[in-house]
């Protein structure tokens, strides 16, 4: 759709605003994998209220604005083997690399962190190569 970039830019600004609030008010870097992973492996279990409240906001706000949009389709695959392998790769990979699109991408690159740029290039190249192999060679997605 031609208007997609407008929604992309507007949504991006909101994402950045969320990161700005989390940094300036709470003093934390808004990295989704770190916030989720810290609760999963117990490293943030002592002060669990802050990450838990953040995650609650991420889940709940889309419910509130969902009725404003029509035809929301996430086009997710129905192939469970693909979903499970992808989920495992994302879970393990983001924790080993200590960040994902929000932490390394949005928060890291905006403060010119070398690790943010290296990670972002690595996961975009891997995703692009993966897409070529999975879709155009193997035809599984």
């Amino acid at each position, binding site marked *: 759709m031609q208007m997609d970039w407008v929604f992309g830019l507007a949504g991006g600004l909101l994402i950045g605003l969320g990161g700005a609030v989390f940094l300036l008010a709470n003093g934390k870097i808004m990295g989704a994998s770190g916030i989720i992973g810290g609760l999963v492996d117990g490293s943030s279990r002592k002060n669990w209220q802050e990450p838990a409240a953040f995650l609650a906001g991420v889940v709940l706000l889309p419910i509130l604005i969902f009725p404003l949009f029509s035809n929301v389709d996430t086009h997710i695959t129905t192939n*469970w083997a693909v979903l499970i392998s992808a989920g495992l790769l994302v879970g393990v990979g983001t924790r*080993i690399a200590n960040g994902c699109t929000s932490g390394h991408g949005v928060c890291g690159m905006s403060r010119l962190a070398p690790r943010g740029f290296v990670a972002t290039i690595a996961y975009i190249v891997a995703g692009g190569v993966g897409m070529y192999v999975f879709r155009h060679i193997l035809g599984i997605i």
Partner: protein
Amino acid sequence: MRALFAFVAGGLFGAGLFISGMTDTAKVQGWLDVFGTWDPTLAFVMGGAMIPMAIAWTLRQRRDTPVLGGTFPPPAPREIDRKLIAGSVMFGAGWGLAGLCPGPSLASLSYGGVGHWVFFAAMLAGMAIAPRLSLRLDRFVRAT
């Protein structure tokens, strides 16, 4: 108070992910599909998100402590290690396979349907075993 601001930050993040279209796996896969029908939306999302965030890092320089107290994150580490690359490559492969990364996987749980829960559960399992794999990787790197 800390939880309230964390909730607001999470809410902005979730709303932004929803509005930007990043919970639509076809848009993410479209961005990665350079040899198919390429979709540039993700670049606008990333660019848009970097603007307030870059301003926030500048404002951070003028303060000693965050508004709610505590400490700011330490300066960004400069070390590029194999774990950063290996982990990011694994993440990228999974990101391309399903078209989901951790933030959008959470934001889409309420409306995406069962597939999103399957991915989310697998991601949590991956995050749970990651510390052990990470230790093994450390030993492997030291041995080579």
